[in-house]
């Protein structure tokens, strides 16, 4: 066994994680992309995406998870998502109104429909997915060494 394998949880957990984590991520993406046609959306899907990375971290330890999504990248994606969302809102001014749905709505229940709503969902999914992961990392990696009282 290599050195890396010793970190994290037991072999059973690692194997199951390896098999499921991709599916969880895909399911999260599915929820994000179909948020306008069925229940779900940016927040729900984003939480599932974040959970897939958290899952990876719990099973394999910090290093493996950070290789997929580092802390700096997570905070970058949060800001990027927020900027995207605001940009979509500001682009509404091209039609005269803040937050105007300026893209043709299309046929209901199709993947490409509902104008800006899927774009907003993607932006929100980025914010929530990366944000929850960043919060989790921040809470977990805080070293707790009680300071002695002077």
């Amino acid at each position, binding site marked *: 066994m290599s050195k890396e394998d010793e970190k994290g949880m037991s072999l059973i957990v690692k194997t199951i994680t390896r098999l499921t984590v991709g599916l969880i991520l895909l399911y999260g993406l599915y929820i994000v992309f179909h948020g306008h046609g*069925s*229940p779900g959306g940016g*927040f729900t899907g984003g939480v599932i995406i974040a959970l897939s990375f958290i899952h990876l971290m719990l099973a394999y330890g910090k290093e493996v998870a950070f290789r997929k999504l580092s802390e700096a990248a997570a905070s970058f994606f949060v800001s990027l998502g927020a900027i995207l969302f605001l940009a979509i809102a500001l682009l509404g001014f091209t039609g005269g109104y803040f937050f105007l749905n300026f893209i043709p709505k299309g046929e*209901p*229940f199709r993947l490409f429909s509902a104008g800006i709503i899927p774009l907003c969902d993607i932006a929100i999914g980025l914010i929530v997915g990366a944000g929850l992961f960043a*919060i989790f990392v*921040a*809470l977990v990696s*805080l*070293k*707790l*060494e*009680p*300071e*002695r*009282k002077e």
Partner: protein
Amino acid sequence: MIVYLLCLVLFCLGLYCILRKRNIIKIIVGVMIAEYAVNLFFILTGYRMRGRSPIFSPDVDITNMVDPLPQALVLTAIVIGLATTALLVAIAMRIYEKYGTFDITKIRELRG
């Protein structure tokens, strides 16, 4: 009517927990309980007898839905609650780091 009163009871339980408990983590749990009581109440204001869930789909006609607006609003309120709780937990952990305790009676350097 009784469900609304139960919501109120839950809210008061949360407030009791905030005011009476000494452990910081328990206070945060109290805040969450009170928050969910309010959210539950808000959802219930949109309820109607035998209404179906407000999901728009191609094969069902739109009749007798429950009010979807409170659900959308509560989703927003839950997200805000998530942010607040995350911040509170982070502060609580930092407090433990500095003071070495979760007991609020021992964390009282500011007063007067």
